[in-house]
């Protein structure tokens, strides 16, 4: 009993029910904050996974495309003008389309994002694509993303067992030659990669229109300077971005075009608020039911600071008590969520420390509010 920490702990732990309720409040808050932030980050990480696989120096889009995943088509010939410029080494056209995949096992239909790539070297790195390119060049053959949602059927498992997998995409029979690993996003449930020839069989369209252009510059050329020059050269019919700008462009779309920031931010705030209210309620009741005793402590020579510290220490004890089981539970939720959604859910050190900071802040806020009641403890009134 030499330190106020011991007193704080004894006050908190005297009623086990109260201690459990308060701790549970913090656990729920930690869980909500970690899970919501996890989803928010997963949404960003997953949406940027494909853009980060681009090895080109410049990316070309239609000015009407809000994001590469829902593109507006533009004329291939505009992209093919670029190699005439001395800074440009080569260009590549990419086709994108949302196809209807019929799961051959349960006959359900899903939307799948289909990429049409070149048969040669690609400036979009898709693991396993080059190895399978001979098969992919056959008519109606595709490379399936094994990280697509499970609703597409056990494609990877069947292939691993040596079975032949034929599916239907846009009412055409497609044979899956192999699997790659890319990952899905909140908006895209699955990915399929085919050659441009096969793509045009699946998606009949106005000849010569493409969705995305990739540009490799000659060695030593500064991408930003080349971008400026090409923009001046081509006008505003195409949006030309450096790779870094393209990633920023996609991020900006997520920030503004999709309400994920708001939804998951709100979820995090709700977690914070629930924890705040529960801890505040518990501490407030502790303070107000002990006012005469606290006034007595003041009378016999304890300072206001001592009592404030006591309440603060109680809130910090709750923060730590709730944080540890909260992170363990969150880890479990991350595992389940990653399995169910195929989103990249990683409990990073950065997120763990941010949420610890948020939890401590939450508890300190609760304590600060509960303490206001302490001023009502007047030692002159207890005689």
């Amino acid at each position: 009993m030499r330190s106020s920490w011991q007193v704080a702990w004894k006050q908190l732990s005297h009623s086990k029910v109260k201690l459990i309720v308060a701790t549970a409040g913090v656990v729920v808050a930690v869980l909500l904050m970690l899970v919501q932030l996890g989803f928010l980050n997963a949404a960003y990480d997953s949406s940027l996974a494909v853009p980060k696989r681009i090895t080109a120096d410049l990316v070309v889009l239609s000015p009407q495309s809000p994001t590469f995943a829902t593109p507006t088509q533009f004329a291939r010939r505009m992209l093919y003008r670029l190699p005439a410029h001395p800074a440009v080494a080569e260009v590549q056209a990419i086709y994108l389309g949302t196809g209807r995949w019929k799961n051959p096992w349960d006959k359900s239909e899903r939307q799948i994002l289909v990429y049409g790539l070149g048969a040669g070297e690609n400036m979009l790195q898709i693991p396993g694509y080059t190895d399978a390119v001979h098969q992919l060049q056959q008519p109606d053959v595709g490379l399936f993303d094994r990280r697509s949602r499970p609703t597409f059927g056990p494609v990877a498992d069947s292939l691993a067992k040596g079975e032949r997998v034929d599916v239907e995409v846009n009412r055409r029979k497609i044979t899956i030659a192999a699997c790659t690993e890319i990952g899905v996003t909140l908006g895209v449930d699955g990915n399929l990669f085919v050659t441009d020839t096969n793509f045009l069989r699946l998606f009949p369209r106005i000849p010569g229109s493409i969705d995305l252009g990739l540009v490799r510059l000659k060695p030593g050329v500064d991408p930003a300077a080349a971008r400026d020059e090409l923009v001046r050269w081509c006008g505003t019919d195409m949006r030309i971005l450096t790779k870094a700008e393209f990633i920023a462009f996609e991020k900006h779309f997520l920030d503004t075009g999709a309400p994920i920031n708001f939804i998951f931010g709100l979820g995090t705030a709700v977690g914070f608020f629930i924890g705040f209210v529960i801890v505040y309620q518990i501490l407030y009741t502790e303070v107000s039911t002990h006012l005469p005793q606290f006034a007595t402590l003041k009378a016999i020579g304890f300072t206001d600071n001592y009592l404030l510290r006591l309440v603060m220490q109680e809130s910090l004890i709750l923060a730590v008590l709730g944080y540890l089981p909260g992170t363990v539970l969150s880890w479990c939720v991350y595992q389940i969520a990653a399995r169910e959604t195929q989103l990249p859910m990683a409990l990073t050190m950065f997120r763990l420390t941010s949420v610890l900071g948020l939890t401590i802040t939450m508890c300190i806020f609760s304590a600060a509010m509960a303490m206001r009641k302490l001023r009502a403890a007047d030692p002159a009134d207890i005689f």
Partner: protein
Amino acid sequence: MIHCVNRTAEPIVNVNHLAFSFGEGDLCKQILFDINFNVFPGEIVLLTGPSGSGKTTILTLVGGLRHVKTGELTVLGTDFRTASVADLVRTRRQIGFIFQAHNLLDFLSARDNVAMAMQLHPEVTATESRERVSELLEMVGLKDRMDYYPAKLSGGQRQRVAIARALVGRPQLVLADEPTAALDSHSGREVVELLQRLATDHGSAILMVTHDNRVLNVADRIIEMEDGRIKQPVNSL
């Protein structure tokens, strides 16, 4: 019992022309008028008088729980007219308070309630303070109840824990407000005798408010109050 009061020493409490009123302006109501008395080291002084005569108010002033506005009040060498809040807190740590309501912390055992007061005396080592806590609880007859929580103690036992808490810091002055009011006559008598014994052993002075006629004989001096004034000092010896 030899009870020694040193009236030649400096008084521990010196009250001079003390007046006090509650409220301000039109609502101002004077409660104490021209109070004069001293308390010497080791002395037991009782404060009696009808309800509302201002006894508790005197105790709160002497205990540094209210600010002195008119008159002089010096307690344990601190002039309360000029003392800062920090000075008052420091002086209060040298005073043992016994309240009518024991106000023990329900989440601490008897031992911890007493030990907590030792946090105000960091100069005492942990070992010594543990010894003192046990010793005092033994003296107040709670040897077998040290680890009981207040909820499991009787009213008299709780009051005795409160007395142990007031005395564990070896205060030079003990202020007690009707410490026997909540007790039956037997435990009341015990508590007062206990206080008397502790005063003798440690040489603490005691200023105690009481209505209880049965305890008047422990006093070195009785101060009778009426309508905010001291009626007339009666010496009992």
